[in-house]
């Protein structure tokens, strides 16, 4: 878990006694200019997406990429949400957006719950082989999913879940367990084992200790895990495109179909509006809970 603590002090403020330090001032200006330019680089695509989505097709063809819209219109948004065609159907992104919601919510909840219990067992109820199991789960996080794509497709067929949203939920839960377990394990490992011992002496059992003592402590890691899972599952494309069929596709797959459909006139404004709609939930999470989002990212990368 990483937090950004206070910056170092080596930048050193100019000392008042010496008067104005011109070199220092110039360096500061250079610094801010650079930082500002990079900020533009990162913001530009979002800016272009938003402005494009608010322009009419005519204006897009005649105007400049980075110009603000002369006339703001939400037509493209309406079309993207409920009218544009993904292949043969023309219902917009809306049904697929809801597909993503009903796929993501249960998958996040299930994977988080399983991860919490697994992490609790591995961190606090060590038994012979627990570390081996943890290592196996951890390696599972790193496999390229291409290697399970073919057998998974067959397995979903056998289970009668091929091309269905429950099938996608199962897939996301299974391949999410590794990370959620890792998150909770790393969090619970920092809780002193004496706490569990004290509760055992007090007469509490496995579930009681989890429920009364560990769960109330877990809010930060639950938030981190939920955000991590939500972002990953919402943004997933590979499983979505591999295991869905017409009607059950998640929003990322639908977006790709809209953008890369070769029929008809290219409506760039609709493409951009659709892209923003698909990105909104995770962007919102990022804006609201950025701190936890970063923690998840860094926790997911600095292992062990």
């Amino acid at each position: 878990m990483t937090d950004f603590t206070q910056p170092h002090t080596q930048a050193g403020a100019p000392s008042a006694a010496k008067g104005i330090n011109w070199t220092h001032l110039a360096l500061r200006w250079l610094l801010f200019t650079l930082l500002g330019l990079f900020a533009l680089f990162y913001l530009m695509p979002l800016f272009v997406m938003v402005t494009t989505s608010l322009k009419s097709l005519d204006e897009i063809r005649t105007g400049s990429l980075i110009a603000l819209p002369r006339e703001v219109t939400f037509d493209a948004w309406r079309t993207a949400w409920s009218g544009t065609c993904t292949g043969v159907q023309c219902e917009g992104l809306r049904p697929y957006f809801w597909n993503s919601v009903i796929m993501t919510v249960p998958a996040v909840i299930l994977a988080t719950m399983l991860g919490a219990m697994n992490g609790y067992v591995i961190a606090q109820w060590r038994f012979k082989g627990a570390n081996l199991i943890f290592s196996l789960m951890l390696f599972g996080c790193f496999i390229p999913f291409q290697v399970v794509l073919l057998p998974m497709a067959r397995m979903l067929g056998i289970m009668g879940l091929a091309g269905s949203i429950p099938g996608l939920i199962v897939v996301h839960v299974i391949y999410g367990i590794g990370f959620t377990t890792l998150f909770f394990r790393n969090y619970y490992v920092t809780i002193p084992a004496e706490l569990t011992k004290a509760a055992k002496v007090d007469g509490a059992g496995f579930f009681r200790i989890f429920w009364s003592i560990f769960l109330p402590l877990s809010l930060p890691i639950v938030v981190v895990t939920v955000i991590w899972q939500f972002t990953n599952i919402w943004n997933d494309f590979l499983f979505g495109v591999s295991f869905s069929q017409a009607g059950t596709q998640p929003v990322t797959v639908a977006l790709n179909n809209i953008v890369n459909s070769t029929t008809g006139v290219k409506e760039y404004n609709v493409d951009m509006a659709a892209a923003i709609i698909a990105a909104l939930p995770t962007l919102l999470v990022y804006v609201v809970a950025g701190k936890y989002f970063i923690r998840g990212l860094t926790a997911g990368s600095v292992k062990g």
Partner: protein
Amino acid sequence: MAPILDIKNLYKNYGAVEILKDINVAIEPGDFLVLVGPSGCGKSTLLNCIAGLEPITSGTLSIGGQDMTHVSPKDRDIAMVFQSYALYPTMSVAKNITFGMKVRGVDAATQERKLKEVASQLQIEQLLHRRPGQLSGGQRQRVAMGRALVRDPKLFLFDEPLSNLDAKLRVEMRSEIKKLHQNLGATMVYVTHDQIEAMTLATKIVVLKGGVVQQIGTPAEIYNNPANLFVADFMGSPAMNLIPAKTRQNGSGTEVEISRGDGSAIVLKDSHSRDLPEDVILGLRPEDIAEAGFRAGQDVQQAQCMIEMVEPAGADTFVVSELGGKQVTARLHAETSARAGAMLDLAFDLGKVSYFAPGTGERLN
């Protein structure tokens, strides 16, 4: 009386590593048993075995006459205070104290009554609604004790409960625990690495090293008659002087020869006839070496020694002299005239002497 805690032939292994070897300890109701030893000696593991938090590899363990070897902690009728206090961080002090009762289904009225009792006993009434995070170290310590007291168990277990407190608070809580023991008449098992804690609290001490019991006895027995060099060195501060010496029988007594720093020897006479080998380690506590004229008795022997260092410590003054190739400390009264670099007559009280075999370290007398 039947022993309230009876440990027989207890072994504990982690894989191939033997942590505890053939432990045999029994205590009576009302005893205060202290398990003491350096870190890694297995004392905390032994306590965890008593609590049932660690399974034992072989042997038996009974509490209150019942075999508890394979019984889980909650059914052993014990309470435990931990080094880190292990307070439940999300519960208030009151909830921390009553959690055990709640889990056991004790009715709310009883819980409330017992909570009040314990809170007033420990003077923590005003803290009951706080969270552990809002308490000082000393207050946490009290809450942890409260959580144990409220259970009214057969056996209280303490795992180095004072080691996270600062020096002053540690002394305060030490005497408080002692008072508690006396007032409750409860049976306690207490783990510490601090030999002063062991000496002040215990009615019975077990000295452990490397998972093996070195000696079991009252504090006085352990202090005065350490069973081996390890116990002699570990218990007492400053430590017992352990001086290589040569002995020979001389009529009705024993002559002990010790070399001084300048190469010359002093000979002390022990009036007891003893069956000793020629080479021994002579053990004398610093307080058994005094300034000549300040100690009298049958076996007090004087010898002139070169004082190398003088350390005034308020109530006493410690002086150091090289004897038998070792820095030997003597505890003199505060107003001593001892000067570093000068000779001084010291009185050795051989009535308190211990002899150890240099090879095995075992006590010889």
